[in-house]
């Protein structure tokens, strides 16, 4: 168990920065998720922590020790790859034993450790098989067992669930979190899937263009996005944005509801709204529409849970409201959070 720290870590490829002066401190035993679209630099940052890429500048510390110049094997980390990267010519047993062989561990000791790691993931009966004889889910467990077996101080996971089908992914997510809690090993997890990030992470680092836009708990990142990128990247459908006078007002679709829902005593902002489309999704209805005067004609979405029975049809005009405490304001020029404007809200 150890902390992981990056100090102004930068990686340039052909003059542009894939990772741009990232400062980050991962706490001991924490499950931290790097979340970002493809090309955001999240995998490059992870590979630099692993030692598979050398930073152009900056320092990386694991357990308060500078490891920037050290090869991966000296860092006592383990990594699970998106492709799992199992050694195809070795049996499952030899795959899991491989990191121990590299340490020169005694054979009996190795056997014991491999059986312990295989037991953690319920793959004891697969030990004699070759990777090609395994299903996707089994391969993923073998990759995890290989990572766990030598008890590293940090786990690095690069989209380990993205090759699994949707159903398996849900149960694998659950198991992954349980085993991380049990071992209490500092873990960094890279994903582009916000559901995975929200569900797994103690904290989430939202990356774009090589920079960390926000670092916070899932709740902070969702409820209090630091800027417009985070507000629109997280949440599906994303936060609605309405721009006027250099200020962007944002509100989540699930907070944008017909005025009938709220009692008169609540502090709300009213948005007259023309419905253009309604999607029925079973547990929710998604209502698409365009705001009307006095607001600019912005496209917005409302998500109505199935227990809201107000009838909403295409081409109707409705008055939807958002509680004022659910409104977020951003500066249009910088994209950053701004203080609420002092104007009086329309009645």
């Amino acid at each position: 168990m150890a902390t992981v720290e990056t100090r102004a870590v930068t990686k340039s490829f052909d003059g542009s920065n894939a990772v741009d002066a990232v400062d980050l401190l991962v706490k001991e035993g924490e499950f931290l998720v790097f979340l970002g679209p493809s090309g955001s630099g999240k995998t490059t940052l992870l590979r630099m922590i692993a030692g598979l890429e050398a930073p152009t500048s900056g320092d990386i510390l694991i357990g308060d020790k500078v490891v920037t110049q050290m090869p991966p094997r000296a860092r006592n980390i383990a990594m699970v790859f998106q492709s799992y990267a199992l050694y195809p010519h070795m049996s499952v047993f030899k795959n899991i034993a491989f990191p121990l062989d590299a340490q020169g561990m005694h054979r009996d000791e190795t056997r014991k450790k491999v059986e312990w790691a295989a037991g953690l993931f319920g793959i004891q009966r697969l030990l004699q098989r070759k990777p090609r004889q395994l299903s996707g889910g089994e391969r993923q467990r073998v990759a995890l067992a290989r990572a766990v077996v030598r008890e590293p101080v940090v786990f690095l996971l690069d989209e380990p669930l993205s090759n699994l089908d949707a159903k398996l992914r849900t149960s694998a997510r659950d198991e992954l979190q349980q085993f991380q809690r049990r071992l209490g090993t500092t873990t960094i997890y890279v994903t582009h899937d916000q559901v995975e990030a929200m569900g797994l992470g103690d904290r989430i680092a939202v990356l774009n263009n090589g920079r960390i836009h926000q670092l916070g708990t899932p709740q902070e990142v969702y409820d209090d996005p630091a800027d417009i990128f985070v507000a629109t990247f997280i949440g599906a459908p994303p936060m609605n944005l309405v721009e006027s006078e250099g200020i962007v007002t944002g509100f989540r679709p699930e907070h944008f509801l017909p005025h009938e829902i709220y009692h008169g005593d609540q502090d709300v902002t009213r948005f007259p709204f023309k419905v253009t489309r309604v999607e029925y999704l079973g547990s929710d209805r998604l209502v698409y529409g365009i705001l009307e005067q006095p607001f600019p004609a912005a496209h917005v979405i409302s998500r109505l849970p199935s227990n809201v029975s107000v009838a909403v049809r295409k081409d109707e005009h409705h008055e939807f409201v958002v509680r004022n405490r659910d409104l977020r304001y951003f500066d249009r020029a910088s994209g950053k959070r701004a203080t609420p404007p002092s104007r009086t809200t329309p009645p």
Partner: protein
Amino acid sequence: MIAGADAARTRGLRRFIDNERWLGRLLLAPAVIYIVALVGFPFLLAIYYSLSDATVGSRTLHFVGLRNYGQIMDNPTFWESLRNAIVFTLVSQVLVVVLAKILALALNRNFRGKWLVRFLILLPSVAPISLGVIGWLWIFDPVYSIINWGLRAIGVFGPNTWPIWLGQPNLAMASVIMVDVWRLLPLATVIILAGLSSIPQDIHDAAAVDGVGFWRHLFRITIPLVMPIMLVALLFGVVFTFTDMIVIFVLTRGGPYDTTQVLASYAFFTGIQGGNLADGAAISLFLFPVLVGVAALFLTMARRAEVT
């Protein structure tokens, strides 16, 4: 009228081309004719000759059974040629595989001037073999040898050291092996390079994270994963070397005292230059079961080592 006839002909042609049965046969025909005429027929002819008393000077031949085989088995030169062929093949192929592997590993990395190194290494494979070997003949020349003059100039050879590369038995074998390695190295390197680049980078990264150093990485990960394709390279090399006589013919003609005589060159000297077609055919056919065995062995090993 004429237009109608043309249209009918076009239709007939189209029907023929669209007929998979005939089209398939048509497209296969060149390859089949080629193999039958230039491989199958000579092969059968060789078997026939080896069981007869055919000579270059006579137009008649008689069936003599296995007499020719018995004769060559009694001939010490045949056994020496067989031994030489095995030494020549084994030593040169061990060198080729090791060197090709090293070269391929080097060329798999990025470094400045890589294209030049790659160009120089691949050069031998584009020059006609016989021309390249004639170049080597000059390099090994007893009077002009650039090796001898060069090494003397930098002081490695003293005034009394002057090896005759192709004239001293052990040196002659070493020389032909060296030329054979030079000739086969490019092909083996390219094949192994293809094998190396087919290993996903993730596997190498995983091994690096799992904590292995260079040697363990090489012997536990890289070599096992390129093994199937390395065996294919080795198969090519063994077959090419075992059946080759160009290097021997140009450099030494089997000399001195048959110390570089191999089966292929011995068959040529006996059958064509010596005029004894029957014995020559018998000697060259001796290669056939050996090569079939080698090919079967390697292909089985390659399949077993196959991983994906």
